[in-house]
C-alpha cells in the first residue's frame, strides 16, 4: 500500500498534489481555485445525497476533531434535502459554524452534484449507488478528497468508470474512503491481523450471510412520473440499487475478499422471488445463494435474503486448516471449539465515525493515506457477479463480467425521462428468469 506522507502542511501538500496531477493527467482540474481555499484552513464539505445515510455521514464528518464546515448540499429532491438540513442542524447545533450552507448552496435536481462539488474540499457521496460512478468521476476530476458509500456501482459499465477514476485519484493523491465500515472496525481489524499471522492456518472455506426481514416501500402517488417513482423506491430497481446482494450483502462479501486478500474468479448460484412477489417490490429478488470460487479453489458460500419471520443472521465465518473465525462474535476457535482469541468488545469503536475521523485527520494534516476506491469497485463487482449468476443460472467469470456490455442507466437523467425498465399494463416489472436471462 502506498503510504507516502507529506509533512509540510496542507497547502504545500495541495500544491504538490496538483503539480503531480498536472504532470500525469490530461483531465482539466476545474476547481483548483476552490481547493482548500477556506479561511483559517477550514475544510469545506459538500454532501451529495441527503437521505438518512448521507445525513448520518455528514453529521459524522462534522463531528470529527478537524476544522470542518458543511457548505453545500445536493439531492434530487427538495423535500429530502430540507429534512436533512433540519436534522443536521438538530445534531450539530451545539457546534457553532459547522453547518454553513447558504440557501443558494442547496442544490436540487439530477445535476445538483455538478454545482455542489466545486464548493468543497471533501465531498460525501451517498446517493443510491447507481449514481456513484458519475459522482465519483466528477469529484476526482475536480480534485476533491472523497468519502463515498458502498456499493460504488450497480453494473459493469459503472465499475469500469469507478476503476478508471480510481487510478486518477491515486495519481492526484486524493484520499478516498469507502463506507465498508468493517474495514474501520476494531474487532475486524484485530481478527484480520491474527488471520494474517496464521492463527487459523490456510483458509479452506468461507461462509457469509445477510439474512434478515423486509425493508421499506413507498406508495406510488398519482403525480409521480415513472422516473420519480423509481427514484423514491430506489431499493427495488437495479439501475439504482443493484439488488440487496449488492446493496447490503456487499459488506459480508467484502470481508471474505479482505481475508482472502483476493477476489473470486467465478460465481454460480440461485435465487428468486419466493415471498416478496408484489409489484411494489420492483424487479429485485428476495433471496440469493451464491458459491464464489477463488483462484486457489477456496469457496465462499454466500446467502442473503429479505424474508421476514425466518432465521436471521448477518455475519461471516472464515474457516482454515487450524480453526475458524466467527466475525460478529469476534471469536477465533480451533476445530475442537477451544477459544484461541476473543476480542474484548469493550474495545469496539463506532466504525462509521472512525471512517470520518481517519479521513479528515489525513486531509487536515496533508497526508495521503486512503485509496479504497479500487478494492471497493472490485468488491462491488464481486457482488454484481453474484446477482448476474442468480439471475441467469450461468457461471459468471469475474474477468468476463468486468468487460460485459451491461449498462442499466437511463439514456437521460430527468424526471420526464424513461428508465430502461418499465412496468407492464398491470404495473408489474419484468423480473430476471434463470435460463432465459443471459449475460455470458
Amino acid at each position, binding site marked *: 500500500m502506498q503510504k507516502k506522507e507529506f509533512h509540510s502542511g496542507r497547502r504545500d501538500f495541495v500544491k504538490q498534489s496538483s503539480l503531480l496531477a498536472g504532470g500525469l493527467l490530461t483531465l482539466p482540474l476545474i476547481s483548483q481555485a476552490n481547493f482548500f481555499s477556506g479561511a483559517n484552513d477550514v475544510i469545506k464539505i459538500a454532501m451529495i445525497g441527503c437521505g*438518512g445515510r448521507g445525513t448520518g455521514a455528514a453529521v459524522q464528518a462534522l463531528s470529527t476533531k478537524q476544522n470542518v464546515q458543511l457548505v453545500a448540499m445536493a439531492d434530487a429532491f427538495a423535500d429530502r434535502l430540507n429534512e436533512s438540513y433540519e436534522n443536521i442542524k438538530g445534531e450539530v447545533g451545539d457546534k457553532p459554524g459547522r453547518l454553513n450552507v447558504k440557501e443558494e448552496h442547496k442544490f436540487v435536481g439530477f445535476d445538483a452534484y455538478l454545482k455542489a462539488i466545486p464548493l468543497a474540499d471533501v465531498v460525501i457521496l451517498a446517493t443510491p449507488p447507481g449514481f456513484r460512478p458519475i459522482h465519483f468521476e466528477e469529484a476526482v476530476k475536480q480534485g476533491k478528497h472523497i468519502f463515498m458509500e458502498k456499493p460504488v456501482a450497480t453494473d459493469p459499465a459503472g465499475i469500469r468508470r469507478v476503476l478508471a477514476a480510481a487510478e486518477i485519484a491515486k495519481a492526484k493523491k486524493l484520499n478516498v474512503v469507502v463506507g465498508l465500515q468493517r474495514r474501520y472496525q476494531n474487532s475486524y481489524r484485530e481478527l484480520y491481523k491474527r488471520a494474517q499471522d496464521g492463527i487459523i492456518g490456510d483458509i479452506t472455506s468461507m461462509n457469509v450471510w445477510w439474512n434478515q426481514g423486509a425493508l421499506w416501500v413507498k406508495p406510488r402517488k398519482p403525480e409521480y412520473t415513472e422516473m420519480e417513482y423509481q427514484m423514491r423506491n430506489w431499493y427495488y430497481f437495479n439501475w439504482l440499487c443493484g439488488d440487496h446482494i449488492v446493496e447490503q450483502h456487499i459488506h459480508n462479501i467484502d470481508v471474505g475478499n479482505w481475508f482472502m486478500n483476493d477476489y473470486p474468479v467465478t460465481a454460480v448460484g440461485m435465487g428468486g422471488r419466493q415471498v416478496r412477489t408484489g409489484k411494489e417490490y420492483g424487479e429485485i429478488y428476495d433471496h440469493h445463494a451464491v458459491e464464489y470460487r477463488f483462484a486457489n479453489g477456496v469457496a465462499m458460500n454466500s446467502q442473503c435474503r429479505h424474508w421476514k419471520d425466518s432465521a*436471521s443472521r448477518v455475519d461471516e465465518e472464515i474457516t482454515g486448516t487450524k480453526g475458524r473465525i466467527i466475525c460478529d462474535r469476534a471469536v477465533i476457535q480451533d476445530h475442537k471449539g477451544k477459544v484461541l482469541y476473543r476480542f474484548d468488545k469493550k474495545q469496539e469503536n463506532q466504525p462509521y465515525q472512525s471512517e470520518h475521523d481517519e479521513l479528515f485527520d489525513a486531509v487536515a494534516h496533508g497526508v495521503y493515506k486512503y485509496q479504497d476506491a479500487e478494492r471497493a469497485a472490485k468488491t462491488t463487482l464481486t457482488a454484481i457477479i453474484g446477482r448476474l449468476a442468480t439471475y441467469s443460472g450461468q457461471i459468471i467469470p469475474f474477468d468476463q463480467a468486468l468487460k460485459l456490455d451491461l449498462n442499466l442507466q437511463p439514456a437521460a437523467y430527468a424526471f420526464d425521462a424513461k428508465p430502461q425498465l418499465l412496468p407492464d399494463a398491470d404495473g408489474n416489472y419484468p423480473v430476471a428468469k434463470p435460463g432465459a436471462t443471459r449475460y455470458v
Partner: protein
Amino acid sequence: MKNKLLVLSLGCMITQSVSGQDNSPPNQPYTATLPGTTVSFRMVPIPAGSFNWGSPVSEKGRKDDEGPRQQVQIGAFWMSAHEVTFDEYDVYSDAEKDKTPIPDGMTRPSPPYIDLTLGMGKQGGFPANSMSQYGALSYCRWLYAKTGIFYRLPTEAEWEYACRAGAATTYPFGKDSSSLKQYAWYAGNSGGKYHKVGELQPNAWGLYDMLGNVAEWTLDQYDVHYLEQAPDKDPWKQPTSRTPRSIKGGNYQDDAAQLRSAARLKSDPDWNRRDPQIPKSKWWNADAPFIGFRIIRPVKQPTKEEAGQFFADVLDKYIGSR
C-alpha cells in the same frame, strides 16, 4: 406546570373509576387475545400494598443509587406474566399480521435496517428486543386503542414491588445467588443469548423472567437521586428528557449482581451509536439486543381523556425516548 400535569395523570390512573370496556375482577389472572389474531398474553394480579423500596447498605453488590431504602405504597394492577414477545409486538409492527387498521394518528415501527435479534430467535415465544422506550410505550398506546383497556409500562417502583413479590431479600427467592439459575437467564446460564419466555420458575406472584433474559424498560426517567426524593405513594419519576430511562431486571449478559431486585440500570445513548442513519431510528436501538419490556394494567383505569393526555405527555413530547 407540565410536571404537575403528569403527576395528576398517573394519580388519575390509579384513583379514577374504571372506564375500560373490560371489568375483570382485580384479584384474578386473565388471558387476553390481540384483536383479530390468535396471539394471546396472560396478565396476573398484583395486589395493592407497601414494600421496602431499594436495598439495605449491607446488601452485597449494592450501589449508591439504591437508597435510602424506604417504604412506599403501590396501588393494585395486573402485570403481564411474561416479557412481551415478538409474536405480540409484531402484530403492532407488521401490518400484515394486524387484521385491523392502525388507529388514527398512530404509526407502526419501521423495520430496522439490520436484523436486531442477532439471530437469537424471534417467532414462537422469544421476547421482543432492541426497541427504544418510545417503541415499548407506543405498543401500550396501540394496545389501548385496540382493546379499550389502558396498558402502560410499570414505574420503577411498581416493577420492583412486583419482582420482590413480598420478599425483602436480595433476590425474590432469597439472598443467595446460587438458586438464580432456576429463575433467570443471566451470564451464568444463558449461553450469551436470550431464551423463550417462561421456561424457568416464576416468582411468588406468577411472574416469569423478571430477572435476566431481556432487561425491562420502566416508565421512569433515570435519576440517580430519585430514592432520596420520591413520594411514599406510587412514586414515578416523570420524563424530563428523552434519555436516560430507568431499566430493571438485568439481562442475559449480566452477572448476578445486576439481577438483584433493587438494582437500578440506566439507558445509554451508546446503545444506538451504530445506527448509521440520521435521524436515528426512533423505534430501535442498534446496539441494545438485551432490552425488552413487559406491560401492566392499572386496576383503576383512567378516562379516555386522561389516557390521551398521558400518552401525549410521555410519548409525543419525547419522541424517540430511549
